């Protein structure tokens, strides 16, 4: 066989076309696009939109131009309308989120730790989960009146479910080997919970908290359907009723930005609390 290969070798040396270089065939996996591409997309769409609005192909009532939205937004900022509404909404989201998150984590942990609680309550929670909160608005008013309470409740419910489900899942997904290790080293029941189950479930709990952040903003609009004079949600509803679409879009823009901010804050907190991730 050495012979065979040597033969071929000689042929290739003399004829040369017999030499084939290996090329990287997965180079396409590594291709990169320039950084400006991502800015380009957003800018492009904004320009197109502005252009369409300027030449009045689409009437401004139907789709206000970005510049008009910004101008309206700026004006609403200077009159203090925006700040006022944002503060009110932040208070509602903050309270509702806090209630929902704490309740979700506590009940999630109970579900995770105590099998009886788990068996009894989990089916109940899963069957209430998919009910659209907006369908229950009239009942919320009946039950909780028209003050801040029903608003907190709606937001808290939207936060509660993802948090409780993730907390529960986090507790259940703890690697049994870690539990076994802890027990072998002498940990007792509550020590196992505090030193193993809780920290192990934290990343999953955080994922729930992030999901919940999105939900809390979605439900803000529903919550502020109930007799709210202030708040970003009620502002959106108000301008929607008046068909002042430019101002409506300002509200929508604020919601998006709040969502972004909320998400970033949670990510920052996660990095602080879970340095070992």
């Amino acid at each position: 066989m050495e012979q065979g290969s040597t033969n071929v070798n000689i042929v290739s040396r003399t004829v040369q076309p017999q030499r084939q270089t290996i090329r990287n065939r997965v180079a396409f996996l590594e291709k990169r696009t320039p950084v400006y591409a991502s800015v380009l997309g957003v800018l492009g769409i904004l320009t197109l939109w502005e252009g369409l609005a300027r030449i009045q192909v689409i009437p401004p009532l139907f789709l206000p131009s970005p510049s008009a939205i910004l101008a309206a937004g700026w004006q609403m900022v200077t009159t203090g309308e925006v700040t006022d509404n944002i503060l009110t909404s932040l208070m509602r989201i903050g309270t509702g989120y806090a209630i929902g998150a704490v309740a979700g984590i506590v009940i999630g942990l109970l579900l995770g730790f105590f099998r009886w609680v788990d068996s009894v309550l989990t089916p109940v929670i899963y069957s209430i989960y998919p009910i659209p909160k907006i369908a229950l608005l009239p009942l919320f008013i009946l039950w909780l009146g028209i003050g801040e309470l029903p608003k907190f409740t709606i937001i808290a419910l939207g936060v509660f479910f993802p948090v409780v489900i993730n907390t529960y899942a986090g507790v259940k997904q703890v690697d049994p080997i870690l539990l076994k290790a802890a027990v072998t080293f002498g940990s007792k029941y509550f020590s196992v919970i505090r030193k193993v189950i809780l920290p192990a479930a934290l990343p999953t709990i955080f994922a729930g908290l992030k999901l919940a952040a999105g939900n809390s903003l979605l439900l803000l609009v529903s919550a502020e359907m109930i007799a709210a004079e202030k708040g970003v949600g009620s502002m959106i509803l108000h301008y929607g009723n008046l068909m002042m679409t430019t101002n409506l879009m300002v509200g929508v823009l604020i919601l998006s930005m709040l969502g972004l901010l909320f998400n970033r804050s949670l990510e920052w907190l996660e990095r602080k609390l879970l340095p070992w991730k």
Partner: protein
Amino acid sequence: GKSAEKQGNSAEPANPSEPANTKPAESKSVSLALLKFTSNAPLFIAYEKGFFKDEHLDVELKWFDSANAVNVAVASSSVDIAAAGLTADFYNMIAQGQKMFLVADKGREEKGYAYSALVLPNDSPYKSVEELKGKKAAITTIGSTNHYSIARILENHGMSSKDVQWTPMNSVSGVVDAIKGKRVDFGFISEPNVTKAVDEGFGKTLTWISDEIKFQSSALVFSSKFISDRDASVRFLKAYLKGLRYYYDAALTKKDGKLAQGPNFDEVLKIITKYTGQPEDVIKKSFPFIDRNGKPDIDDLKEQIAWYAKEKLIVKTLEVDDFVDTTLLDEALKAAGN
């Protein structure tokens, strides 16, 4: 006039058994749920001009977006008083055991006073109610005053509520937009939106509701909690009556069968403008009718209940005595005189 009223009030002999009347009444806080409608003018006036304060009532206005929410709020005693729309949900809550009390008129359709209308898109070919058969009607919701009025008008013209395609838009602005966008054949609109539709040129009136039917469409409603404080209730009604008459005399008086501007007209106009956020000249075109003595049309209430029951929009029929209490009004009227 203010001080005179006050004196009249403190000297009021009607109910000597009530201790609150003998000593100077302590201030009571009262929450009032209402929408930004012109028909709440008496309340705006009483509030703005301090008539409530004069009665030692510390009234807090709670603004709502939906008539339904106003009714629910008063039914559950979340607020003390509501400027309520008499809609199916109102009767339903009572039928299902909720206690609340209709105490006074707060707006009705009365011939000669244009307030709500059937509005057509501006290029609509229809000229009569009869032609609306099988057409699409924009309303806020089923069981609302919109729905009720149109259905009753249809019945008066030999049709039934099944003869049009109901299109619930879930909001007043939705109804206006549906007509504006010619997405429906007609719709129910109240002032000041009727004026706006005509002025902006996208709509025209087919007929005014008050030309077709009588309809007690809204009322002052007390929660069961509030009405238990009989003294405060009467005092509230006194202030209300004062506002109501102030409004009536300014805006609803007629001379030679035609509406004429009464005393304080400009002031009343300003107040309404302030509280509804609508432009003056739009407000000016039409004022909803309210009985000068605040007497609700009990017969019409009975008719409404019968109709809703027939249409299966309320869970069971009910007696007006269960929820109408005019004794308070009578007391207040006695004190207020004419």
